[in-house]
């Protein structure tokens, strides 16, 4: 365990953000780094709980948090890495972008500030990379079985890496130019630099994972082909169909699904595409609809692109403002007001706002008409109702719809494979992560619907484990 009563001696310290004026000028990481010594001190706050809520209830990957915290405290970095790698394929990614449900579940969060678990995770991994301690884990024995992984988001990558390490021949099929999926094209660089993904892809290539990019399954390769040449298939295509806002004026130009906007920005930065003037926020008044993380990413990106003004509207009421260090809903993810680095950079946030319609000029959006809503209990259910005479409107040049996703994007392959779906337009799988088609597994958002990266990694690992069992039993 960490230091006995270390949490009484030391308070929580997290890395600070670079100054707003500085970070707004680039797309680089917004975080500063803490000293190694400080990280050890922070790890000493971990109590090695009898029931580690972080590990059991917080982290979907069940990261062995108390174990590596203890190693950090004792400065045994290589052991820390070993325990971390046991459950997490990409700790340098989760260490950057995970919302860290582990920290809200930390026992200290009952009445104190939690351990800086996410930053500890990141430090272990980055230190290991800098020391050259993260090397390919090349499987000695080869099974000779071929596995196709469809999609290279976090679930696909995790599945591919696990399967390759078990000695299978893994081919990852990706529709975009580079592997990474949402990690590469959905998350802005200031939160996750793309070099981080490249570094990991390189390791995976050394571990014999084959990446076939710009392959559109169902079009470029048929179901028949895949079934014939691969002993198993893992589908991790994400949950890419965006939820739309069906209101008058939706058809106007300048209204985009958030993910289109973000991926375009990312592609431009990695020089995959030229700048699309339609999809840049430069000099525009931008309205982001949706108060979640994607919305926040849009805010940060728009500001960096030089937006004139950024609004973010959320239909649900403003959550509890909470300034205490502990979690009022411990150990669960609390419904409290969160302010991200992007929000700090300039943004007008409103809650309980419903967008009723858009108006435009020259087929371009110029105005959003909104109304305030209230959450009321009706027949035992909570329902939204409009507040009378609370209408208002704002002038906008660009509207980004960050209202979540509704399931997988339809694809011929899935039809040809004849995979059963759930009501939520995700794949139906059994307890072994297998779809209704033998040998075809599914993982990630394609199964769970839109969720956290960390959960996708978990899904990918699970699918790989089950695919492996399936393959070895063949």
């Amino acid at each position, binding site marked *: 365990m960490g230091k006995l009563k270390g949490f009484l001696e030391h308070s929580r310290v997290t890395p600070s953000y670079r100054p707003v004026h500085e970070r707004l000028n680039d797309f680089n990481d917004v975080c500063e780094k803490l000293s190694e010594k400080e990280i050890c001190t922070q790890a000493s706050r971990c109590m090695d709980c009898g029931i580690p809520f972080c590990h059991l209830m917080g982290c979907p990957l069940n990261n062995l948090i108390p174990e590596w915290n203890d190693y950090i405290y004792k400065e045994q970095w290589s052991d820390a890495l070993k325990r971390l790698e046991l459950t997490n394929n990409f700790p340098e990614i989760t260490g950057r972008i995970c919302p860290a449900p582990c920290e809200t579940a930390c026992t200290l969060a009952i009445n104190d500030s939690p351990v800086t678990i996410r930053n500890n995770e990141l430090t272990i991994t980055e230190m290991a990379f800098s020391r050259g301690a993260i090397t390919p884990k090349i*499987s000695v024995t080869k099974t000779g079985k071929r596995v196709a992984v469809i999609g290279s988001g976090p679930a696909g990558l995790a599945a591919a890496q696990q399967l390759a390490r078990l000695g299978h021949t893994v081919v990852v099929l990706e529709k975009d130019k580079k592997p990474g999926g949402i990690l590469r094209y959905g998350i802005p660089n200031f939160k996750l630099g793309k070099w981080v993904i490249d570094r990991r892809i390189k390791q995976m290539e050394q571990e014999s994972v084959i990446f076939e990019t710009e392959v559109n399954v169902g079009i470029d390769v048929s179901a028949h082909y895949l079934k014939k040449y691969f002993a198993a298939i893992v589908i991790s295509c994400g949950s890419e169909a965006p939820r739309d806002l069906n209101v008058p004026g939706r058809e106007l130009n300048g209204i985009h699904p958030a993910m289109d906007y973000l991926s375009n920005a990312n592609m431009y930065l990695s020089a995959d595409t030229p700048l699309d003037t339609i999809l840049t926020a430069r000099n525009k008044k931008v309205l982001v609809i949706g108060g979640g993380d994607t919305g926040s990413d849009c805010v940060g990106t728009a500001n960096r692109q030089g937006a004139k003004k950024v609004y973010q509207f959320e239909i649900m009421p403003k959550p509890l403002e909470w300034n205490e260090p502990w979690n009022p809903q411990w150990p669960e993810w609390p419904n409290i007001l969160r302010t991200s680095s992007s929000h700090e950079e300039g943004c007008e946030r409103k809650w309980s706002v419903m967008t009723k319609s858009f108006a435009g000029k020259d087929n371009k959006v110029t105005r959003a008409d909104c109304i305030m809503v209230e959450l009321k209990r009706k027949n035992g259910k909570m329902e939204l109702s409009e507040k009378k005479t609370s209408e208002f409107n704002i002038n906008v040049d660009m509207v980004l719809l960050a209202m979540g996703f509704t399931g997988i994007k339809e694809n011929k392959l899935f039809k040809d494979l004849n995979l059963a779906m759930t009501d939520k337009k995700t794949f139906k799988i059994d307890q072994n992560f297998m779809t209704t088609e033998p040998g075809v597994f599914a993982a990630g958002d394609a199964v769970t619907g839109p969720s956290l990266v960390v959960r996708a990694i978990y899904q990918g690992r699970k699918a790989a484990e089950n695919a492996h069992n399936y393959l070895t039993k063949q």
Partner: protein
Amino acid sequence: MKTIIENNKMKIVKKQGLYEPQFEHDSCGVGFVANINGTPTHTIVEDGLNILKNLVHRGAVGGDQKTGDGAGMLIQIPHVFLKKISKDLGFKLPDFQNYGVGFLFMPQEKTARDKIVSIVEKNIKKEGAELLAWRNVPVQPGCLGEMALESMPFMNQIFITVKGLKKEELQRRLYIIRKCIEKEAATNGFSMQDFYIPSLSCSTITYKGMFDAPMLEEFYEDFADPDFKSAVAVVHQRYSTNTFPSWPLAQPFRHIAHNGEINTLRGNINKMCARETTLESPLYGNDIKKLFPIIEPGNSDSGSFDNAYELLVSSGRSLEHSTIMMIPEAFGPSYHISVDKKAFYEYHASMMEPWDGPAAMIFTDGFRVGALLDRNGLRPARYIITRHGKVVMGSEVGVLDIKPEDVLKKGRLAPGKMIMIDTLKKRILRDNEIKSSVSRRKPYRHWLNHNRIELKGLFQIPATENLSDTGSLLTIIQKSFGYTLEGVEKIILAMAVNAQEPISSMGDDEALAVLSERPQLLYRYFKQLFAQVTNPPIDPYRENLVMSLMSFIGRERNLLDETPLHCHQIKLTHPILTNDDLDKLRKCEIEGFAVSEVPILFKAHKTELKEALDDLCDLSEKQIDNGSSLIILTDRGVNENYAPIPALLATSAVHHHLIRAGKRHLAGIVVETGEARDVMHFATLIGYGASAVNPYLVFTTLADQKKKGKLPELTLETAIENYIIAIKKALLKIMSKMGISTIRSYKGAQLFESVGLSSSIIDKYFAGTPTRIEGIGIDEIEKETLMRHKLAYGETSIDKKILDSGGSYHMRKSSQNHLLTGESIVILHRAVRENNYALYKQYTDLINHQSQNLCTLRGLFHFKDSEPIPIDKVEPVESIVKRFVSSAMSYGSISPEAHRTMAIAMNRIGAQSNSGEGGEDENRFKKLANGDWEISKVKQIASGRFGVSSNYLANAEELQIKMAQGAKPGEGGQLPGHKVSELIASVRYSTPGVMLISPPPHHDIYSIEDLAQLIFDLKNANPEARISVKLVSEVGVGTVAAGVAKGKAEMVLISGHDGGTGASPLSSVKYAGIPWEIGLAETQQTLLLNKLRSNIRIQVDGQIKTGRDVVIGALLGAEEFGFGTMSLVSLGCVMMRKCHLDACPVGVATQDPELRKRFKGKPEHLINFMNFIARDVREIMAKLGFKTFNEMVGQSHKIETDKALAHYKAKGLDFSNILYQPELKEETSLHATSKPQHDFSNTLDFEIIKQAMPALEKKKKVEINMPIRNRNRTVGTMLSYEVSKRFGSKGLPDNTITCSFKGSAGQSFGAFLASGVTFQLEGDANDYVGKGLSGGRIILTPPKKATFRPQNNIITGNVNLFGATRGEMFIRGKAGERFCVRNSGANAVVEGVGDHACEYMTGGRVVILGNTGVNFAAGMSGGIAYVLDSDQLFDTRCNLEMVELTPLTDEKESKFLYDMISRHVKLTGSTYAAEILHDWEEMLPQFVKVLPIDYKKALERMKNFESKETELVTVTEEIY
């Protein structure tokens, strides 16, 4: 007049349900009386009868309130009387010692009896003897209880001669005849209960039976005859934990009478059995085979001892030689004993292991009679020698009325000492004389020096260079032996760093091994047995001077002979071998000592574990046949193709195979295994036969860890040594739990119970181990082993080279199931805070949903479909919650906030909270202004007796004697100094910052009759309160509970193994005790069989979490329920398991002021929880159709078990024993309907209180005079209750009530005596004088007429002033052992004391004007003793670990001492003390001051006002 009951077949209670007769315990009063000059008189017989009558209170009666547990008398053959009889019977009796008399317990039923008669006659004839006559012994069954009567045998005596034989020779022939008869009777299906021979001898005869002591003479008419004479009478009064009548098991046996318990019996019997093959004696020649089996099957511990003893004595060893061979005294480095004696003991250690356990043993051959105490001396044995040549020895003083002027000497046996009266030589032989002559009868010392093998370099600093050989394979090998990260870091590394086993807290809620999905090491299917009530555990830290890990390995020779070669064995100082040590053994080239090696591996790709075991056994036997003296079982060489046979299975299989082959004693077994690493592993390996263990993989692991920089502050050598030290300490602790002192007798003693192994495994490989619910067989063991092997070597696993987390101690997702999960805690917190029953139900679903989370046996239970009733017909919640208590948690282990909140909550709902050990702040006795009450209505009395005063006891509704605690049964505890805050110190009457020790045993409970005495004491201390006894579930707990019921407790608490703790060694949390389901069911069944159930209520606790748990408990027999862990969880506990570290982040289990602030629990939370449980219970009751709780109790047939469960291990379980219901008469109640009636007929306090009324009512001074005798027990305690009730802890002004007594006081004289009361006793006293003294004054003087010198004589017994908190005591004369144990504030003057005086003392001043025994001041952390050290050897008798000795230089202190002694002179009239004062200038420098080091520091701190928290010294070397 003879009454013969014909055709009444004896009813014997056989093994049924969970009741196992082998776990009956008994304990008792013993004594003897003898004429030194050997003249047989009828007076001696009468004296014997009188002794018995005066020991009645040490016995007990059964459920029929009449059947005694047994009593008897062994005397010389009353020749004159028999001669008279022979005339009536019409035969001629030969001269004394020329004929033998047999006493026979025959079947009542005629045809069976005829069969026996013919067997007897046939064998007598066959052995060339002549049967002179049969005699029907006249008896008076009218005095018997119903149960005794039903099983009463027909009594016969027979008379035998053998031509030309007399005395010893005749005796030997009679022995053969008896054995032949017994054997033939057994082959004809007669058990010992059907037919038994109490004695067949030419010198002694034993009369005994199932009655209370006074009825002996009433039952056997012979006693009345004036010609019924003897020079020697040995008597015994039995207190058995049960009353299944067993006539044969009454004592005395043929040679001995025993008060105590042989704990190592299983090992002793196995070893005796194996030795039979090499027994030879010229005295017997070929006849020796007729004596087998030496140990009669079905015998008790004492009976088996008698069997073995008889063999030794009859083969030519003297009585005294045989006795000390079997019960050797301690001869470790702390003892000053002669080198010859030491050599004698060591030589015999190579021949026979001690029969270990508490023992006051009386032995006789009719002409010599002696008594001996075992090394611990935990049984009282007091004697008086009269001027007229009589010696009276008894468990108490005052058992015979002897005029003071006739007393020549009053003494007591000290631990390990003996005394013997030789009526032929007409003298008394003292310990020194006996032992020096025995130990020099042969040149044992020379034999030992020349033949004992001492390997050079054994147990030296280990070499470490070859340790890291396995390199990259290490992890894989570790995995094949089931290593986990947690095991390496939390167990192995922790021991290497701290040299002691790790500590943990909270209970063990991990799934039982047999219910676990993951492969479990075989060790997890075993649970350690521990002593509770029937014998005391030993303190392995403070009293380890009596303990020893030394043993011999090699070939044992003929037990009946002694030659120099007998000790040609290797001496091991302890059983943990380093790789070097093993290497030396392997390579040793010693003549007559061959070493061979047998691998314990099996092919991993086949399933042939069973065959491999057979081969292993055969091979081992072959090696012995080829001359091996030492067999090394080794699992080195595990690889992809070979998996290790579980080391425990291999060891025990070989051990039992060799026992069956009669070859076990011919070779030692050493186990070289990669598997052993935890202390339990070593304990089981040794317990099942290994002499030594080499845990090579631990050492390699340590080397690897060192290489990785994990042991920065230690050298590898030190790490290894520390690890070994930790294991050694822990082994001592595990042994001590059973009260066993030497590893020699622990080896093979099998002191374990299995939970989850099938009897097919047990019978074949672990024969004699109890297993009650069946479980897995060899196939499953194999499967588990291969699963581990596959994890290590199998397939292309990615993380092959990384250890699993483990998760057995701290939960992990991938680990074992635990009953409480994060989710269930979170939901429950919400439920109790929001008072939301629906959330509570979610919580119970998580706990009860056992297909997801199978952890407990009850998880497999189901309620049978029943006719439901409407819920409003069911008893209301308000009355159900009254059956609930919050389990005992001490004031030191949890925060004051949590403790008070719990009390308020329980009081509000009319339930009870428990103070736990450690007193209670008196301010809490008064109600708060808002009507709340912080009082704990249950007050606990634990071994440390912290804060147990008259006032504490008077303010309670229940007084609970804690015999054991689920998390660490059989162990003590200690509160480290840094936790002893001002508040805690004040309620415990101790000094802040000074460590407090709770000893493993209650020093006033060494046996069941002692417990009955404490119950009686407490009943006197508060007649309104009910008395309860807390036990922990283990095999035999039912019989202990029966004993408790007979001791007249009103409630017995059965705790599960999984109960919580504030701090406990990890191995104890995991491996001691069993689930309450088994213990509770056993208790219910045994109490019913004994007809005791209706008198005593049963409470159960141990991870009780839901209404379902409560109902299952009720159906199995419980009426009340304790909630420990869940009470804490309701108040915010999150199972951090950090209580022992004072680091609880939610302020529940901490004394840290910062953390205490974080406590957020409210009484409402706990109230909500209790109400939820009751509501839940009520709903189930409605479903089951029970209107009232009482009608539900014991209805085990409402439970069925899940047969459909597909779990590969659990499917072998069989719960029929748990659900078994004994056949009962219809009216038998399954729950308590009445209370036990205490017998106050000998209580003097009623009269005293009457006379003291003016004092009690008006504080007027009164003086009272009264005679007293040993039957008058616990005098003054009820009076003190009256004082405390009226005046609180302040009591009355000094000397308000003065009582003067004359005579021999019974036990517990002046116990809990309150302030203002002065007791003067002229005469002598028994044990426990001034126990818990609470401010009163006791003055003890010898009779005025006595002529002996008081300072040389024992006038008061053992354990005086135990747990005294305040007051004074002056003793003119010497006191026995353990004077002032755990005294925390009384002052005393005494003229000499026995061993272990001032042990664990925490306060008070003790002046000792004479010699002390050994181990003075062990564990003494406070108070001061002044000892007159005239021989300047006191420092050698003092345990210097915690104290320092200084001269008295301070004038104030000298004056204090002078004043104390002056008062002593004034109050007792001691001339001896007056002389000391007279020569004060010369005497003062001879006084030594004994001052605890920490106490001194604390005193200095207080003096300097420097009590800053941070500067408190750490005194916790061993927190346990």
